[in-house]
């Protein structure tokens, strides 16, 4: 700008070719030609926290199919010598020498004045952990017998890295098996709520008019019913003599049934705005049927939003399950979920004596946080052109 003041008006003598000038750099080319999903992925990648949350969640979800292999014990394996045993510390060096991961053997006795089990490490008993090993027997997916584990205690040794409960059951294995129910309950519930949300939101948003106002009222009603009391009421209505599998399904359906209004609202408002877009109008004018317009032209426009908001509603379902199981309205032993495990921590003063009973809180917090971050990231990425 300083130059401009004291020079005369300057015109570039080179010929101007608008086509050449608008040539895109390879990056730009890639960007403009990329599909919506690709751009979303790029955008999502920049959100590091969300990315890592996704990774964490994948790791957690690995427990679902492979719980038997990952867990050192089964959730109901008991060791009568280790009741309320505290977590065994993992050591690497014994007498200054590197041994690899190992635990010290423990001896237990009853302290009758304080009425509790006392455990003492026996420094002579070094029990190195074994990896890719054969240990406690289980029935893989309830189908065939196997005893292969990622990690096992030493032969004749123990490995209670998160301690044991009152019957001497390993907490860590409980958590790993519990992930199976706790993590899937949200997914199934969200699937139900997506289906319902799409259906009702779709009708309301696309057809408008009477259908819209009816569904609007319905949504309003559902939203003014407080969730938890309703969950409580509905779970209390589940027959207690149902098998655990049915109770589980019933719970997911209840969780899903009450969650759809939020999604339906999102779908509706998104549809309303998309319907006004030119490409949608064009399709209608060209004589496309509503079904085609919705599925071909409108749905892709907000799938990403649906995924994002579904992700955000999974954690509330996970928390809901824990709350219900905590109140004895949900799952019960012998089913194992994080809520069931937390149920043992109900008596807060027991927790002061045996703090490791609180362990299930940790995965709950991590998973809920991860889902929230992931959801935030997805939501940001859902509007990649913004």
């Amino acid at each position, binding site marked *: 700008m300083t130059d401009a003041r004291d020079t005369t008006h300057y015109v570039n003598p080179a010929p101007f070719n608008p086509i050449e000038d608008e040539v895109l750099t390879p990056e730009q080319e890639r960007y403009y030609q990329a599909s919506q999903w690709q751009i979303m992925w790029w955008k999502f990648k920049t959100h590091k926290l969300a990315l890592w949350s996704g990774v964490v969640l994948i790791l957690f979800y690995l427990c679902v199919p492979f719980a038997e292999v990952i867990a050192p014990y089964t959730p*109901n394996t*008991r060791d*009568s010598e280790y*009741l309320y045993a505290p977590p065994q510390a993992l050591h690497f060096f014994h007498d200054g020498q590197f041994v690899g991961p190992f635990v010290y053997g423990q001896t237990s006795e*009853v302290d*009758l*004045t*304080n*009425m*509790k089990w006392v455990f003492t490490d026996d420094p002579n008993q070094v029990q190195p952990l074994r990896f890719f090993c054969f240990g406690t027997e289980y029935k893989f997916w309830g189908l065939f017998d196997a005893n292969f584990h990622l990690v096992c205690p030493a032969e004749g040794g123990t490995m209670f890295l998160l301690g044991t409960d*009152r*019957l*001497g059951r390993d907490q860590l294995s409980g958590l790993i098996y519990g992930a199976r129910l706790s993590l899937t309950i949200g997914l199934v519930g969200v699937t139900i709520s997506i289906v319902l949300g799409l259906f009702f939101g779709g009708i309301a948003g696309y057809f408008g008019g009477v259908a819209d106002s009816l569904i609007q009222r319905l949504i309003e009603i559902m939203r003014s019913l407080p969730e938890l009391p309703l969950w409580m009421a509905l779970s209390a209505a589940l*027959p*207690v*003599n149902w098998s655990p599998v049915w109770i589980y399904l019933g719970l997911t359906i209840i969780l899903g049934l009450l969650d759809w209004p939020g999604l339906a609202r999102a779908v509706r408002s998104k549809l309303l705005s998309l319907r006004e877009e030119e490409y949608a109008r064009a399709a209608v004018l060209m004589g496309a049927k509503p079904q085609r317009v919705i599925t071909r032209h409108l749905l892709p426009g907000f799938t990403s939003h649906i995924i994002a908001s579904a992700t955000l509603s999974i954690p509330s379902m996970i928390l809901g399950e824990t709350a219900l199981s905590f109140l*004895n309205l949900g799952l*019960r*032993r*012998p089913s194992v979920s994080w809520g069931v495990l937390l149920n043992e921590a*109900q*008596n*807060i*003063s*027991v927790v*002061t*004596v045996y703090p490791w009973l609180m362990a299930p809180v940790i995965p709950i917090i991590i998973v809920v946080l991860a889902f929230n971050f992931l959801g935030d990231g997805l939501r940001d990425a859902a509007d990649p052109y913004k």
Partner: protein
Amino acid sequence: MTMKHIAKLVLPATVLALPLLFCAGAASALDLRETPGLEADLPPIAERVPLQPLVVDLAAKGRTVGQHGGTINTMIGRSKDVRLINAWGYSRLVGYDANLKLVADLLEAVEVEEGRIFTLHTRAGHKWSDGAPFGAEDMRYYFEDVASNEHLNPAGLEPFMLVDGEKPTFEVLDETTVRYTWSKPNPMFLPELAKSRPPFIYRPAHYLKQFHEKYGDPAEIEKLAEEQKVRGWAPLHNKQDDLYGAQNPDEPSLQPWIRTATGNDRRFVLERNPFYHRVDSTGQQLPYVDRVIMTVVDGKLIPAKTQAGESELQARNLSFADITVLKQGEAQQGYVTALWSNSKGSEMSILPNLTVKNPMWRELLRDKRFRHALSLGIDRQMINRTLYFGLGKIGNDTVLPASPLFKEEFRTKWAEYDPDKANALLDEIGLTETNSAGTRMLPNGQPLEIIIETAGEDSSQVDALELVSETWREIGVKLFIKPSQRDILRERAISGDLVMSVWSGFENGIPTSEMTPDDFAPVHGDRLNWHSWGDYYETKGEGGEKPDWAPAERLMELYSEWLVSTSEEQRTSIWEEMLSIHAEETIHIGLVSEVPQPVVIKDLKNVPLKAFYGWDPGAHFGLHRMDEFYFAK
């Protein structure tokens, strides 16, 4: 004791079937001392206690004489539990003493002739908590105007008042004496009066008459009914008349503490009854403690609050699992965690349903070898160690050593852990085939899988069953636990679908021969192991099934004999035969008994450190005479 008194008591003793019931001491020898802090408008102590108060000899019981004052704070799990005060107070016409002997309590004396004529003497000068006299009229009011009134009591007299369906003749002999006469012995009568939840065959007539159609002013009754939102005089009367439930603070009572109108549904204040009939040997009127305050707290928080020192006397909602926590708080809060022992026959009992509908199961469960095998296949030692630090006593569901009827074999027969013997027995039955998992096969080709249903209220039952399932696996029996609900369990027992269930053992593990052996015979329809037989008895053959199993028939016979028994020897031998049938047949598969019950005591004296904790007999603190507890200053 005056001479006249002794004569009166000794004379009928020659014809008594029951041991003599009497009160100790006499007021004349006592120098009554006024209770401090009472309201000024009350009459002096001498006019408040009966002419012959019940004098408690604390020294003889190994207790100390206390002092008045203080408040016992305690917690209950729901507001209905306020009625526990009337169990804990345990003032009965006749009640059990610490040795489980029946003694007169509210009554001055009872005479029993031929086991069928009961003469009840109330104490002269005994007063209700509002100062109105208590006597024969209150008993008459109950019998004639309440129990026999078809509006108040449409179903008629309660079973303990009927012998073979026959009602007693009731007479008022004088102001303090009434007599019940049956044509045959009624051994159920006195034990029933001593129950933790007794039938209250006396009612405060002076108070209740205002609500009674026969005595009250109809306009007034109608107005009151309107106020109480009930329709008609009978519901009104029933609502106001709640001696056990303690729901009506206006109704006078004879118990040591009475409910006051202050407080609400979450906190109940129970003040001393200034007209209570018991005094200590130094002339101080009981109870020592001025008031009991019961706060309603969610059951799950009670251990935590107790540990924080918020209760002076707590056993309710504390369980064995809380002991560690309670012990931990002792030093800081200055309380003591006494370990009483549970007086149930067994902490928990596995109940094979002998009247199950499925014919194959019925045959199997009634086969004594099968039940023996199941019992022998349980490692009770391991259960005791795992769940109770080994502090319980292992064995069958039967009476405890504290009961005079106890014999070692009742507890140990078929109760040792012997998988080899169990396997042999199962083989002998013919269950020799096994599947790939090592589970035996039933005659119908199904694996031997037993579903044990629980009421889902007590998590230690599920824990114990989990332990049982481990050792049953070794004898080829697979166990599934199904947590359910009380009502559903009952329904399934009624329909006959229930195969096996788990429940707490016999309620009364410390019976004497005077107590009704109804738990041990199939006479109640609410039992999960023989509903149909009990129903048959209760409905007099209209419902259920006639027992068609030799041991049950014999138990039935013995029970009927007990009902018309007249002597202690006869009753003892009946009891012993019933108990040995139970031990020999393993009708209940008991696991562990005498499990410690934590009782938290803070600054209270005279509370035993070792005692039985039970409901009937026991009334929780009742048998241990809560009115004698006091605070050390």
